[in-house]
């Protein structure tokens, strides 16, 4: 992974000093709340229900063992011994003290980490496929370019105070796992017919209050122009995006208002002046950064391992875990492993300090000292030998990190919701926990098969509910908490937004509602169909009828 040189280190160190002084001025009353707000936000610090919340950047989801150990120590020392992996591959601390945050950042800087631009109206952490570099369907490893974009966007002076936050995702695989269509800019890498690295540029996607999938603003962009082209896009947005109403301030609203053709025309006009300028990426810079993302020093291994095969045959629990949590790999004899942060009945994405240290040790011992965070809020060991899988499983299992539910119903994506977030309409974590308990039977869970269930506590959609196969949204009705259900959302190349099935439900009804949706699926599915396929084939009506019919029956009893 990328390693800082003195220049990178100086930037994070100077940032700590700058931020420390900002906090000092705030505490001394020299900065008003309003003035401090964007400053702290651009350093990942929210003020939430109970305490500040600090969001630490994990650029494109990549972490080293050493960094993970440091995060474990920080969570122990400055927080309550746990952290939360978010859907944007970052780590959040829920209980730090404001006056400690400069020290936390100083600690992070010692392991080449920071919280720069993890919040606020600026270019945020760049996200990508959690399997970048090892996925068999990868065409181009986007990490080097993601790092170049990270550096370019760090304190970009022109784009320091945009109308609203700005998220960029990159992807270089056949199957999109980075949701490029749900980002302000999505960069999809491919080889063009000259066998040169090129990019299809999506713009104006986003979830939130007005969910919109992105539009293609440019089919073919040569890689060296990425930065200047993004500058053109963001300049048009910076000058013309709305600033009067934060709900209408995202670039997606501008793109819709102008239409993609007019937007493209303005971007192209701007770009004519920027193209081939100094921020054009050189071969030398790409090569310099790429050297940090070369293949790991793999051993030459056979595609099969007898010990592994016999463990699968003799141990059903291990086999179930392998089926769900172990993923194909480019390199023969290696696999990627998901460590589930979704044990049933716990807040999705939460991890204790002890678990962080265990994960760091696992990565150190079995996966070249590197790991990833996924936007599904799990952790990944990218390069594990087949022959090591059993040992990894035993350690993971002993530490609550081996729930075999990756990609299944209980692998819920869930925002912090009303327990932590001051914007929430409703709690989301208890709903996730209740659903997990309802489907605690692993055989049943595996029989239901692949299903993405996403929960957000309000229409800001931090939990991506629109693209969940089943989406749950917290709504407020006369001051009490209700939940609206959508089905048919999907991420990926054929992304779609879910459809609301009808009136909202009370919290205690929710496990039952999900249960009834599953009953319809189990009744209607064909052999190969996943839940989403059945929904797409038969439409929402049968689901709706079953859910609400039962409701009415119950009401009459």
């Amino acid at each position: 992974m990328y390693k800082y040189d003195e220049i990178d280190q100086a930037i994070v160190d100077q940032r700590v000093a700058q931020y420390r002084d900002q906090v000092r001025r705030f505490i001394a009353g020299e900065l008003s709340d309003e003035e401090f707000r964007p400053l702290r936000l651009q350093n990942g610090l929210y003020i939430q229900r109970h305490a500040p919340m600090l969001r630490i950047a994990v650029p494109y989801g990549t972490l080293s063992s050493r960094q993970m150990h440091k995060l474990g120590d920080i969570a122990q020392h400055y927080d309550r011994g746990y952290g939360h992996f978010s859907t944007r591959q970052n780590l959040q601390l829920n209980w730090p003290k404001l006056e400690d945050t400069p020290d936390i950042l100083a600690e992070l800087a010692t392991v080449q980490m920071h919280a720069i631009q993890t919040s606020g109206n600026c270019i945020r952490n760049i996200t990508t496929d959690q399997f970048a570099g090892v996925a068999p369907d990868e065409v181009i490893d986007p990490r080097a370019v993601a790092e170049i974009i990270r550096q370019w966007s760090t304190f970009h002076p022109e784009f320091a105070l945009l109308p609203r936050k700005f998220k960029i995702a990159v992807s270089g695989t056949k199957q999109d796992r980075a949701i490029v269509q749900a980002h302000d800019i999505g960069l999809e890498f491919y080889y063009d017919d000259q066998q040169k690295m090129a990019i299809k540029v999506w713009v104006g996607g986003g979830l939130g209050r007005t969910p919109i999938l992105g539009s293609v603003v440019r089919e073919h962009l040569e890689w060296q122009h990425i930065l200047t082209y993004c500058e053109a896009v963001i300049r048009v947005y910076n000058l013309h995006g709305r600033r009067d109403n934060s709900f209408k301030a995202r670039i997606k609203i501008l793109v819709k208002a102008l239409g993609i053709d007019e937007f493209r025309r303005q971007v192209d006009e701007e770009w004519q002046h920027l193209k081939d300028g100094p921020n054009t990426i050189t071969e030398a810079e790409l090569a310099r950064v790429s050297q940090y993302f070369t293949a790991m020093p793999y051993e030459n291994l056979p595609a099969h391992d007898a010990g592994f095969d016999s463990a699968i045959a003799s141990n059903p629990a291990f086999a179930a875990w392998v089926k769900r949590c172990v993923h194909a790999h480019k390199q023969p004899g290696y696999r990627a492993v998901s460590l589930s942060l979704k044990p049933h009945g716990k807040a999705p994405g939460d991890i204790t300090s002890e678990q962080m240290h265990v994960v760091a040790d696992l990565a150190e011992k079995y996966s070249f000292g590197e790991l990833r965070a996924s936007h599904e809020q799990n952790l990944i060991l990218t390069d594990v030998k087949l022959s090591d899988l059993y040992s990894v499983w035993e350690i993971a299992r002993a530490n609550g990190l081996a729930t075999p539910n990756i990609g299944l119903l209980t692998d819920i994506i869930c925002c912090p919701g009303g327990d932590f977030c001051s914007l929430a309409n409703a709690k989301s974590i208890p709903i996730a926990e209740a659903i997990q308990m309802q489907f605690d039977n692993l055989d049943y869970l595996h029989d239901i098969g692949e299903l993405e269930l996403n929960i957000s506590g309000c229409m800001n959609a931090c939990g991506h509910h629109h693209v969940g196969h089943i989406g749950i949204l917290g709504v407020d009705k006369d001051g009490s908490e209700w939940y609206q259900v959508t089905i048919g959302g999907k991420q990926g190349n054929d992304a779609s937004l879910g459809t609301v099935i009808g009136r909202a439900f009370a919290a205690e009804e929710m496990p039952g509602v999900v249960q009834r949706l599953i009953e319809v699926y189990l009744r209607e599915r064909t052999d190969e169909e996943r839940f989403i396929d059945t929904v797409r084939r038969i439409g929402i009506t049968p689901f709706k009828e079953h859910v609400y019919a039962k409701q009415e029956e119950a009401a009459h009893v």
Partner: protein
Amino acid sequence: MSNLIRNNAIVNDDEWITVTLPAGEEVVRKQAGKVVMFKLTGEQSCTPEQIAATVIPASGKIIVPLSVWLVRKDELAPRLAKGELGIWLATHEVLENLIDAVDDINQLPIIAVFVERFADGRIFSIGTLLRTRYGYKNELRAFGDVLRDQLFFLKRCGYDSYLIRADRSAEEALASLQDFSQPYQGAVDETQPVWRRVQR
């Protein structure tokens, strides 16, 4: 004590007088031209009455609002010819109107950009465009809600003059121009990105 920073130092002898529009009724108008379809932002532009009623000091160096210059050009042209007239615009105004309104942008000894709220980042693009697209070389001043935590960015976007908000110390603000020693990306002040500047 002056609150003006110019070329990295506090200056006490600012010879420029900023001319402001008289208060008008609160009229909210949509901007003309290409931005019309999304100028829903509720920002005000001024009325002909306000422009007519704007008091121009009879002598001395003045910075006049763009809207006043556009309407009262004939009256003000001699001041420009003497090098005693600069123009200011607010962040929601259309920069191209300024460019079109003078034969050569470098006739203006000073351009000032007014930022009503410090969080309005349009000021950065306006500075960048003036310096790069339109080749403006003279003094470029930020005024209004100008605070120290934005100075480094303003500098990088081509500003060389900052009128710090009256209730804040320019002395302290000065320090923040040095917040970062080696920024990553090319911008106005340092056009080359770090990888072209130094051997990494």
